[in-house]
């Protein structure tokens, strides 16, 4: 596929047009990645509802059947279940354990443990665990699997 890249002067002018014979998984993945920044979903905190951009999310955790979304600004409740958010967000949002989804774009670095799990340090210095069962998927998503 030919790719044309054109530099524009403002954010408003940014757009991506994909012309394809059929919508393959690769194209769907590219669309997900491009849309990642503009995707938003509803969360709540102290009785108020907010729409947050997917790009602001560090990780999402499920505790006692409740879903919590963590951003730089703090923690929010979310009505969606983890598996729904996994499908909704796609892109670099990956399941890193049974109860957590991580935004790979917010990971500063990783360090493997001898047990096979990986400790991921986020941009806010929090450390989350990538379980060994999900390490392969993470590598694959990063194109090194």
């Amino acid at each position, binding site marked *: 596929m030919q790719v044309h890249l054109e530099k524009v002067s403002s954010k408003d002018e940014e757009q991506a047009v994909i012309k394809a014979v059929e919508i393959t998984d690769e194209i769907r993945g590219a669309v997900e990645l491009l849309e990642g920044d503009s995707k938003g979903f509803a969360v709540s905190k102290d009785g108020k509802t907010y729409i947050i951009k997917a790009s602001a999310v560090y990780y999402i955790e499920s505790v006692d059947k409740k879903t919590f979304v963590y951003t730089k600004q703090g923690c929010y409740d979310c009505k969606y279940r983890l598996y729904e958010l996994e499908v909704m967000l796609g892109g670099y949002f990956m399941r890193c354990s049974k109860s957590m989804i991580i935004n790979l*774009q917010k990971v500063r670095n990783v360090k*493997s443990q001898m047990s096979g799990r990986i400790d991921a340090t986020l941009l806010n210095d929090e450390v989350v665990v990538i*379980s060994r069962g999900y390490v*392969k998927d993470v590598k694959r998503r990063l194109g090194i699997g």
Partner: protein
Amino acid sequence: MNKLKIWLEQTMMISFAILVGIICEGVFYSIFMGDELSSFNLSWLQLLSIVLTGAVCSLPTVIWLTDLDIPKKKFILWQILHCIGLYVIVVLFGWLFKWYSHLDGFVVVSVIYFLVYVFVWVVSLWFHKRDDKKINKALNDIRDED
């Protein structure tokens, strides 16, 4: 499928390490004990026993260490139990396949076992470090700074 792959990889790694250990033992006896290097040989049964030992020693790793997300502190205890468990298997196989008949042979097998154990974990550690580098490099390319 993933577990089968890990099992085969571990089997190959352990069998190879045992073989290297035995070769080192042969060279050691040749240099320091004056044994003829040409007298050093392995029968098909010994080779089979090496592969079997590798396969059986890999099982606890696949069964225990691939499903559990063990906390760092508990992992050391698991590691010690794992090491002792595998040592028991090696001693048992050594007795079954007659790797040793006297105490000195038993000591040599024990030394080889611990060297192989350390070798396998050092190689695993090296793989982890290599993976970390690759992942961190890939993360640098996609990072979305605040």
